[in-house]
C-alpha cells in the first residue's frame, strides 16, 4: 500500500505516458511502429540538416540519376534529389496527420458523445448525417470536396477531415451508450450536473482511449488518402515534395527509372504501417485490464 502511495505522488499524466511507452516497447511490432514514428518526427524537425540538397533545386544536367554517388536515392526528371525531397516530405505528411487528427478527434467525440448521451430525435438526426458521410467511399468524397474547394494541400486536409470523422463519432456514440446508464452518471445527475458537464467530465474521459486508438489507426488511412489525392493531382501541388505527388510525377518514368516511385512508395508504406502497428499496440496498452495488471 505504501508503494502505491509513493507511485501516485509522481505527476500522474507523465507517469501514465511513460507506462504506455514502456508497454509499447515490450512488443516488437508496436516498438517498430513507435520507432518509425519517432524517426519520422525527428527527421521532420531536423529536415534542413538531414537533407543533402535543396528539395526544390533543379539540376537539368543531372536528371534521372540512379541511386548512389552524390544522390542517395537518385534524382527525378528535373534533377532534384529524391532523398532530400522525401526528408522534406515528412513535414508535409506530419502536418496533414496533425491537422486532420486535431480536427477529426474533437468533432467525432462531440457528435458521438452528445448524440449517445442525449439520445432520442437528436441521436437519430445526427446518426443519419453520419450515415450519409459513411456511405461514400472516403477517397471519392474527398475528391468531391477537393473538386469543389479547388486543389491545394489545405483543401485536401479539410476534405480528409470532413470524411474521416464519422467512424470516430460512431465509436464514441457506441461507447457512450454503454456508459450513459452507469451509476456514476446517475450520481452526477443527482448532484445537479448539467448535461454538458456530464458529457465533458464523465463520458468523454471514458471514450478517450478508444477514440485515441481509432485516430492512430486512422492516421494510416489519412496518409494513404493524402497520397492518393496528391497522386491524382488534387492534393499538394508541384513542386511541393509531397510523397503521393512525387509518385504521380514519377509514374511517367517508372519503367526506366524505378527509384522515382519506389522510395516515396516505401516511405508511405513504412509510415502507414507504423501507425497501424502503433494503433494496435495502443489498443493493448490502453486496455483497462492490462493497466490493472501493472
Amino acid at each position, binding site marked *: 500500500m505504501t508503494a502505491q*502511495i509513493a507511485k*501516485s505522488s509522481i505527476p500522474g499524466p507523465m507517469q501514465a505516458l511513460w507506462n504506455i511507452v514502456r508497454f509499447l516497447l515490450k512488443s516488437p511490432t508496436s516498438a517498430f511502429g513507435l520507432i518509425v514514428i519517432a524517426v519520422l518526427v525527428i527527421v521532420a524537425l531536423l529536415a534542413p540538416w538531414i537533407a543533402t540538397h535543396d528539395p526544390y533545386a533543379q539540376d537539368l544536367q543531372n536528371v534521372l540519376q540512379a541511386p548512389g554517388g552524390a544522390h542517395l536515392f537518385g534524382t527525378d526528371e528535373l534533377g532534384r534529389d529524391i532523398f532530400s525531397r522525401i526528408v522534406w516530405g515528412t513535414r508535409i505528411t506530419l502536418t496533414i496527420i496533425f491537422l486532420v487528427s486535431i480536427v477529426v478527434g474533437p468533432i467525432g467525440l462531440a457528435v458521438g458523445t452528445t448524440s449517445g448521451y442525449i439520445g432520442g430525435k437528436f441521436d437519430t438526426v445526427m446518426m443519419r448525417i453520419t450515415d450519409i458521410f459513411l456511405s461514400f467511399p472516403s477517397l471519392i468524397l474527398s475528391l468531391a470536396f477537393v473538386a469543389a474547394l479547388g486543389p491545394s494541400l489545405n483543401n485536401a486536409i479539410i476534405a480528409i477531415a470532413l470524411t474521416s470523422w464519422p467512424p470516430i463519432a460512431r465509436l464514441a456514440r457506441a461507447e457512450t451508450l454503454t456508459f450513459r446508464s452507469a*451509476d456514476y452518471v446517475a450520481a452526477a445527475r*443527482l*448532484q445537479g450536473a448539467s448535461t454538458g458537464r456530464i458529457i465533458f467530465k464523465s463520458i468523454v474521459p471514458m471514450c478517450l482511449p478508444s477514440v485515441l486508438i481509432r485516430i492512430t489507426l486512422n492516421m494510416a488511412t489519412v496518409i494513404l488518402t493524402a497520397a492518393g489525392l496528391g497522386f491524382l493531382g488534387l492534393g499538394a501541388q508541384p513542386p511541393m515534395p509531397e510523397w503521393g505527388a512525387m509518385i504521380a510525377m514519377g509514374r511517367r518514368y517508372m519503367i526506366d527509372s524505378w527509384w522515382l516511385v519506389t522510395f516515396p512508395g516505401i516511405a508511405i508504406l513504412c509510415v502507414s504501417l507504423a501507425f497501424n502497428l502503433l494503433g494496435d499496440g495502443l489498443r493493448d496498452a490502453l486496455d483497462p485490464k492490462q493497466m490493472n495488471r501493472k
Partner: protein
Amino acid sequence: MKSVDIRNLSITLGHGAKAVKILPDVSFSVAKGECFGLVGESGSGKSTILRCMSLLLTQWDGKITIGGKDVRQMPLIERCRTLQMVFQDPYGSLHPRQSVRTVLHEPLRIHGMDNRQERMERAITEVGLPVDFLDRYPHQLSGGQRQRVAIARALILEPSVLLLDEPTSALDVSVQAEILNLLSDLRAKRGFTYIMVSHDLAVVDYMCDRFAVMQAGEIVEILDREALDGNKATKPYARQLIEASLEYDSAV
C-alpha cells in the same frame, strides 16, 4: 430532517390498449429521521421507487413530497441538496478515472459551496477514511472503501434524505457490518431520513424502524421491525417471505 410522503406512485408504459403498468399504485410515508426499508424479491420495484423519488426516472404519475414540498416542483439545486442516493455497486458508482478528490469536489463546484478543502476533509473523515485517501483513484480502493467514498459523496451536499439502494449487497459480510454501522452512526449524529432497499431481512432488522414488503410493484404490507421476531406479518406473502428468510438464516 424531513419527512417523505409518497402518494399513488405509478408507472405506466405504452399507450391505450397496449399500456402496461409496471408499478400499479404505491403509497407510504416516512417520518422525520426514520429509517424505512423496502424489501421484496428482485423485480418487485424496490429500486424503481428510489429512482422515481430521485427523478432519475421521470415518467411516473402520483405525488412525492419531501418535507411537504413536491419533488417535481423543487428547483434542481434544492432537490440535490435535499435528497441524495447511495448505489448498490460501489464498483460501478465511482467514475474509474476520477480521483476521490474530484468525486467530492464536483458537487461543491456545481453548488458553488465555499470552504471546499475543509468540506472534503470533513466528509472523508466522517466516513472513516484518512484524509490522504483524497488523492486515490477507485482502483486503489477496496469495495468497502469505495462504498465509503460513495457515502461521502452523498453526504457532502448535506442532504436530509438519503436513499440507499442495497448499499451493502455487493460487499462481503464483514465489510457489510462496517458500512451498516457507519450508516446508523451517521443517522444518529446527523439525523438523516433513510429509505433503504434491501432483500436481506437481517439488514432491515438491524437498520430500519419500519419496512414495506413488496411484490410485483405493490406494497403487500407495512410492518414494524418487531414484527420480524416470530413473524407477526398478517398477509400470506409477507409471512412466507419472512419465514423463508428466517429458515435461510438458521440453515446458514
